[in-house]
């Protein structure tokens, strides 16, 4: 049994949940506190957290540490989201928090945050399994943006971030001085304008059976309706219509009472319910499910995984890979070549473990780079490296942090252009040495592997790799002519050797 504290330094609320983790993926929430603190508004406007907000933030976090002490927690994880992400003096802020509260806050990128939200559903166990059985969309509504993810038979098909967050929409409504009665129509227009292109790209004729809603606005109301004891709460179109009709008829104070919430949240509940309703209608789903989970649930689930307490029922890594494949597909990357490269790089990576000392996460980067390495072709055949880099940098990959995405993008780039040494280029990118070395190592492996499939004809079969002293013996079955491959192999072996001090040797096993 482990006691764990998950802290979410959100844009308008600080919250902490205390969990007990036990075997069989059991996650028991034993305490939950939250405190409204609007960090977002100030930060978005000025790029800084004001001194009084900073004081309150530290005071509350200090209180959190006392609660953590009272439960004698074994470990904690504290994440900052967009407000912290968008402060220009992030390092100073984090250091101050550390000094004043002793807490280490890590900052989540949007895609990491969404991935955790997505994992928070997994913390619900049973309902998550049901998600995977049907065609499902996850609608994750935040203050600044919303994230739509589609699932098809246990796989993430696509995920897209749209800048349609409730706070943002409310801001627009205020600017255009929209009357409450016009809200639904206007919000619908705004949302649909962006969603129609999304629909063309991803949805096509896909039938979505259910939508899972993650938000801090409609969900609490929905969960209140059914009670926490139930696994999940569902909202029908009628419910949304009821909610929207309240909006048209009542004053804010009465609405707040009706919805059992604070007045400032009332418009947000309505915007969120309008978005949910219209997304559900567009996708043809009959019901919207609200598991009532928060980021803290996801943080705890991730922690359970990381300490090996939770056995993954669902392979989240595959979701990240699926995401990369979708990007590759969109830019007409070769699926076959991707598969070949994945196989070769994996073989080499595994055989070189003793030398490179990298782990499972890095293996994933390599895999992603193998999939994405030629996506830039779509834009420019002559400058694949830079184009691919740009595509990867511009496309969100759920589950990867910004730093990780940059890492993958660089591997992809240096697969095509000469490696930029730290002293020359990497420093400009503000990449730390550790990351740089990872990029170098993985680039070396990818380059070597790509060379082995230079003709893109998947000539090599059953590739095996063995490390013998200072040589990496790579053997493969093939009857075809390998002149081209061997040529490229040798030219790329130099970089490989430079990075690992291991000479790769390609041996052809001719089998009839």
């Amino acid at each position, binding site marked *: 049994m482990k006691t764990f504290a998950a802290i979410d330094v959100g844009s308008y*609320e600080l919250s902490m949940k205390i969990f007990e983790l036990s075997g069989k993926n059991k996650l*028991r929430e034993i305490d939950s506190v939250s405190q409204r603190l609007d960090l977002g508004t100030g930060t978005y406007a000025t790029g800084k957290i004001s001194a009084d907000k900073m004081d309150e933030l530290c005071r509350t976090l200090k209180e959190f540490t006392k609660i953590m002490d009272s439960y004698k927690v074994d470990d904690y994880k504290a994440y900052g989201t967009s407000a912290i992400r968008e402060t220009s003096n992030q390092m100073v802020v984090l250091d101050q928090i550390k000094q004043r509260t002793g807490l280490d806050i890590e900052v989540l990128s949007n895609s990491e945050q969404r991935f955790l939200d997505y994992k928070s559903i997994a913390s619900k166990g049973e309902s998550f399994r049901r998600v995977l059985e049907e065609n499902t969309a996850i609608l994750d509504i935040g203050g600044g943006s919303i994230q739509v993810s589609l699932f098809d038979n246990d796989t993430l098909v696509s995920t897209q971030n749209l800048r349609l967050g409730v706070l943002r929409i409310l801001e627009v409504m205020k600017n255009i001085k929209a009357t409450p009665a016009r809200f639904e129509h206007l919000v619908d227009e705004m949302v649909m304008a962006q969603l129609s292109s999304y629909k063309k790209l991803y949805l096509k004729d896909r039938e979505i059976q259910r939508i899972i809603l993650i938000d801090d606005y409609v969900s609490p109301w929905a969960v209140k309706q059914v009670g926490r004891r139930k696994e999940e709460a569902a909202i029908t179109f009628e419910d949304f219509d009821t909610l929207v009709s309240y909006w048209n008829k009542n004053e804010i104070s009465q609405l707040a009472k009706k919805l059992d919430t604070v007045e400032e949240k009332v418009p947000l509940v309505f915007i969120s319910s309008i978005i949910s309703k219209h997304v559900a209608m567009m996708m043809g789903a009959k019901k919207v499910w609200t598991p009532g989970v928060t980021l803290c649930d996801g943080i705890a689930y991730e922690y359970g995984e990381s300490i090996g307490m939770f056995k993954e029922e669902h392979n989240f890594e595959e979701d990240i890979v699926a995401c990369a494949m979708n990007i590759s597909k969109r830019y007409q990357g070769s699926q076959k070549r991707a598969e070949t490269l994945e196989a070769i790089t994996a073989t080499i990576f595994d055989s070189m473990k003793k030398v490179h000392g990298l782990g499972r996460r890095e293996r994933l980067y390599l895999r992603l780079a193998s999939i994405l390495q030629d996506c830039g072709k779509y834009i420019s055949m002559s400058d694949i490296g830079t184009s691919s880099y740009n595509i990867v940098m511009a496309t969100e990959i759920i589950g990867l942090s910004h730093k990780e995405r940059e890492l993958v993008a660089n591997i992809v780039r240096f697969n095509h252009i000469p490696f930029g040494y730290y002293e020359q280029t990497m420093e400009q990118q503000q990449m730390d040495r550790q990351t740089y070395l990872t990029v170098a190592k993985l680039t070396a492996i990818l380059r070597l592997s790509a060379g082995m499939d230079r003709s893109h004809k998947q000539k090599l079969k059953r590739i095996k790799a063995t490390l013998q002293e200072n040589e990496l013996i790579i053997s493969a079955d093939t009857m075809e002519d390998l002149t081209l491959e061997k040529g490229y192999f040798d030219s790329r072996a130099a970089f490989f050797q430079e990075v690992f001090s291991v000479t790769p040797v390609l041996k052809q096993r001719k089998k009839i």
Partner: protein
Amino acid sequence: MKTGTKKASDNKAGTRKVSENKVSENKANTGKTKAGNHKGKAAKTDVSKTGNGKVAHDFTAPEYYTNRELSWILFDHRVLNEARDKSNPLFERLKFLSITASNLDEFFMIRVASLKDMVNAGYEKTDISGMTPKQQLAALDTAIHELVNLQYSTYNRSLFPALVQNGLTIVKSHEQLTKEEGKFIDQYFEENVYPVLTPMAVDSSRPFPLIRNKTLNIGAMVRGKDSDDELEFATVQVPSVLSRVVELPERDGMRRVIFLEEIIERNINKLFLNYDIICAHPFRIMRNADLTIEEDEAEDLLQEIEKQIKLRQWGEAIRLEVEAGTDKRLLQFLENELSLGDDAIYAIDGPLDLTVLMKLYGLDGFQHLKDPKYEPQAVPELPAGCNILEEIRKGDILLHHPYQTFTPVVDFIRQAAVDPNVLAIKQTLYRVSGNSPIIAALAQAAENGKQVSVLVELKARFDEENNIVWARKLEKAGCHVIYGLVGLKTHSKITLVVRREEDGIRRYVHLGTGNYNDATAKLYTDMGLLTCSEPIGEDATAVFNMLSGYSEPLFWNKLSLAPLWLKEKFLYLIEREKKYAEEGCPARIIAKMNSLCDRDIMAALYEAATAGVKIDLIVRGICCLKVGIPGVSENITVRSLVGTFLEHARIFYFENNEHPEFYCGSADWMPRNLDRRVEILFPVEEPALREELWHVLTVQLADTLKAAVLQPDGSYEKVDGRGRKAICAQAQFAAEAVTKAKEAAKLTAAQDVKHKRTFTPAERREE
């Protein structure tokens, strides 16, 4: 003299400020009530016809309600009736009379003062019964004078002669003392009284002194010896450090006592040696004590309250009690100095401040004239020396005080304080007894490294001083002390113990209807629940998170909290009964509480009753609801129980179409409870415990000895016991508790034999 006057006007300004606040608060409330009251909105007249021909009432019409202050007077009358009831032991009757007096004091300081503030502020809004503050004051003036007259005629005509008959004489005035007694008294005065007296004279150089609230004083008109100067005023406080009852040597087998003020009066010339005493009489003043703390301005609540307590003694005078036959010159002087009108003067035919009778009750002897002292019984589920947490794990435990002892509640905290696996203890404290064992246990827990959070409600009326001392003590021990909430009183009674067990955190919760006060737990009837139910535990954690300033939980599992959700919950429960009644299903509400005066609730009750819900209310004190209004409240009965113990529990029963729900809580159906306090209502769900609650309610409804039933004319009448079995609910509960405890003890003894495998020889009985 000048300084004195200036102070008085300062005070007035202070009071006005307070009253303005109150006015706006009241206005806000009225607005809220109206808005919330969707039912009454449409109908302007009281009765109108709806479309389907049914009669629709405006259940908020003023004629459906009794003024709360007048209803309170009726309550004090019911207590007074106990003092007049010859079937009660004589000394118990003294006690009841004393209670009516202390009740009335508090009523004056809070309610009358508040009405006066409103009148001074020109506030004319009517109450639920349609009376303006001015009209209420006028009605109260008559009613209170009547009540006081009845108090003293009870004392003079009934109790005093009965005491003489039983061998105790109260010497009414020092003039009635024998020569020997006079000597005795004078010596007593010189040795014990004189050293602690502070006589004060008023003349042009010395201003009118501060006469402390509620204290007994002797005022005198004096004149300089051998002079023709004007009369001067002198006063001396009857010291509260000395017993007001002084026993004289026995005479002819008769015990005799005299009151301290008579002793001082007899010797007053010794205090003002240079003066001739023209006249001397006891007097007592009551001041406005409705303290409204300006919390927004208060930087530190603790300091502010300390300041307010000092202020309270300075509040504007609102009542002057003097002995009947007091010299007119003295009376005139006091009236002028205190700026009082005739209606505020009470000329008393007997000793001032009848709370002295409580002291008389404490005299040694006379046991046959007192009820035998009731010893709270052991709780069968919690035998002495048991591990309370372990017993709670076996199932929820209901406690019924004072029939059952309060000790398990104290032990609950004591044991948790030393339990190595307990992580945290959290508690709300409203009124704590002096030298509270709970405080000691909490302090110990903090010293043992547990996280201890205590919300000390500093705004508990008249107890602030006491609470501040404890709060400081707890802080010293390392507890996290929350000094109440801004704008709200925390009236809920809840304790949470968080313990780390093999299968994770387990929460033990105590919820009660009464304060964590081991002294009053012997006098007040209250319910308590000990449970480790997970849903309640989660809610309890959420309660303390909210009390610490964190946001509300996503939702509540079992508990309902005021001021945010409780009223809605009650209205929902009442409405649900109404719906069932309309559908022809069984519908019934039984509710027991201290006071009923929330209009929304009462209107909902009328509406439910009209729909056919049978409603039985057991309301000890104020009840603004009227019974027997044709077509409105014929289905409602109201009864009030006044007995040896103060009825204090709040229990609610809702039939719910044969799926009854039972609740207990800290809140009355009063606006102050539902809108301005943190209160908790909790369900009692285990079948055996529900049976117990059902038993409590039904026995109280069957009481024929101590119950008074509200009549359609607004009066209360004792139940006509003829032809019925005499039932005194309190006596029955007391006897049942004794039986249960005995049975449990026997059972434990039998189990012990099996457990220890030895017999215990009985001791030889003394003949």
